[in-house]
């Protein structure tokens, strides 16, 4: 059969509508705005790990759905989230990505807030007396925050269901990892990358198992370490996903060595690999001895900030920490053998979809929920369709 002509690119694949995705999900401005409003503005979003705000007054600033937010641990020990905006003139309140403060003082006119968001000081406050301005009504705007298994989530939706309802059983493959009360995790690695690709293209590199072929480390360590039939893909309400049953034999990649079984996280062997992509923008990954948490923040339809954390065990020996850092860096981080290739793939797809050269992508692999099935991609885009109200095969109603 001859190669397809240019005009043919607009022709949908001859597949069921849930087996392909329109390129408009990546580049259509209307679709992007819907995502901000109906998806990112509604879900619980992973903000940070508790270890990043472990002491009273510790804060982290970040953006979610284009909104500037801060998370802070209050005097009462609770972790709260606020818009990182002064109630006075709307200036950004905190400029640093992290810090410790008993009071949050705006640089502009020195209005101050306590760790619970209450406005506690207005310089020369008497100047407002004739207007009746009430300081007690001028606290920071709070955003709902809840914590589960040390993971701090926030939602911009005041009426969103509780975090536990949103997550459901989606973290069950990590029940033992997070369930051991003697083990506390902490973040040892953080890096942020700006990737020239749509934010979902990054998530696809997580939930698309077929792309293992792209990574030499996965071809050598993972694809043959356990039978494809032992792979255990799971889908959950609200679009969350999980895969277990993956193994890796690290000795099969030249620059790696076997991992010490005794250093595996609770409930895992050193060779186990498990992933939980939490819809729509977060992924928790363990590779036996180390954990990674990713979250994506879209800048616009064509650019995305990817934040990656590496986690080890709080209080572990220096030697164990160095081992986990090495294991983390073997795959992940800016100089890892795996992550730069995922970013390469996301950007390569952007070059085609972002310019309309590609119109559809195929997510039709059916291996009965095992192997390299596209089950998780289909589940991801079904959840996306449910939340946006736009069918992923024709989101712009063309």
């Amino acid at each position, binding site marked *: 059969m001859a190669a397809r002509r240019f005009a043919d690119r607009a022709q949908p694949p001859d597949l069921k509508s849930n087996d392909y995705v329109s390129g408009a999900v990546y580049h259509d401005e209307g679709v992007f705005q819907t995502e901000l409003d109906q998806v990112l503005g509604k879900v619980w979003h992973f903000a940070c790990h508790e270890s*990043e705000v472990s002491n009273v007054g510790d804060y*982290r600033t970040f953006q979610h759905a284009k909104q500037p937010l801060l998370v802070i641990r209050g005097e009462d020990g609770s972790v709260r989230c606020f818009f990182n905006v002064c109630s006075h003139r709307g200036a950004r309140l905190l400029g*640093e*990505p*992290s810090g410790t403060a008993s009071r949050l003082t705006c640089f502009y006119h020195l209005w101050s807030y306590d760790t619970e968001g209450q406005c506690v000081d207005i310089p020369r406050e008497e100047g407002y007396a004739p207007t009746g301005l009430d300081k007690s009504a001028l606290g920071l705007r709070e955003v709902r925050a809840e914590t589960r298994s040390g993971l701090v989530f926030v939602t911009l939706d005041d009426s969103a269901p509780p975090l536990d309802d949103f997550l459901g059983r989606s973290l069950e493959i990590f029940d033992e990892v997070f369930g051991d009360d003697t083990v506390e995790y902490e*973040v*040892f*690695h*953080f*890096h*942020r*990358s*700006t*990737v*020239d690709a749509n934010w979902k293209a990054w998530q696809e590199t997580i939930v698309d198992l077929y792309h293992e072929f*792209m*990574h*030499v480390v996965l071809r050598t360590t993972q694809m043959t370490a356990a039978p494809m039939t032992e792979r255990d893909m799971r889908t959950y309400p609200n679009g969350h996903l999980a895969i277990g049953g993956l193994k890796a034999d690290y000795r099969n*990649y*030249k*620059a790696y060595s076997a991992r010490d079984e005794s250093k595996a996280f609770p409930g895992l062997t050193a060779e186990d690999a498990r992933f939980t992509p939490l819809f729509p923008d977060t992924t928790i990954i363990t590779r036996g001895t180390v954990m990674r948490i990713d979250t994506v923040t879209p800048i616009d339809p064509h650019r995305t900030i990817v934040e990656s*954390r590496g986690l080890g065990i709080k209080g572990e020996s220096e030697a164990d920490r*160095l081992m986990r*850092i*090495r294991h983390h*860096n073997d795959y992940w*981080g*800016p*100089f*890892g*053998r795996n*992550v*730069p*290739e995922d*970013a*390469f*793939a996301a*950007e390569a797809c952007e070059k085609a979809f972002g310019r309309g050269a590609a119109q559809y992508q195929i997510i039709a692999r059916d291996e009965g929920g095992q192997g390299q099935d596209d089950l998780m991609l289909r589940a991801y885009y079904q959840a996306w369709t449910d939340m946006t109200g736009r069918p992923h095969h024709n989101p712009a109603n063309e």
Partner: protein
Amino acid sequence: MSSDQAIREVVYRACTALDEEDFDTFMAQCAPDLDYSVTAYSPEIRKEMTWLDQDYEGMRALLEMVPQHLKRLGTLKRHVSVYFIDRDEGAGTAAVTSSFIVTHTDPDGRSQLFVAGMYYDVVDCAGDQCLLKKRKAHLETRDLGIGSHIPI
């Protein structure tokens, strides 16, 4: 002990070899007890981080695998300024402090800054040839886009 020029040259040759992806020449600049690390400070988690840490054999194995990887298209160019050379005559080594920037040039010929930082090197000057014994590449730039399979 070797001249300052010879000490500078091992820094420069190591960089040009990495630029050219001539990994045999790069390893030839390295001492058998090489300790090569890439670090950065994260203001987000308020910690020093290690993003790469390899000994001689680890570095050799890592570089030998590079051709099998899918990697950033185009080329990297390391621009290095050696600031200080502090000799330890007794140890036969020199501590070399350098500033660097690395530019990336894509296949269409567009160049942009990839990363800026400092090299903190220890050069073994005891033998006939100066060799890179230790390098800590400390990065100021932390957003490296899609990253790199080749050490900085």
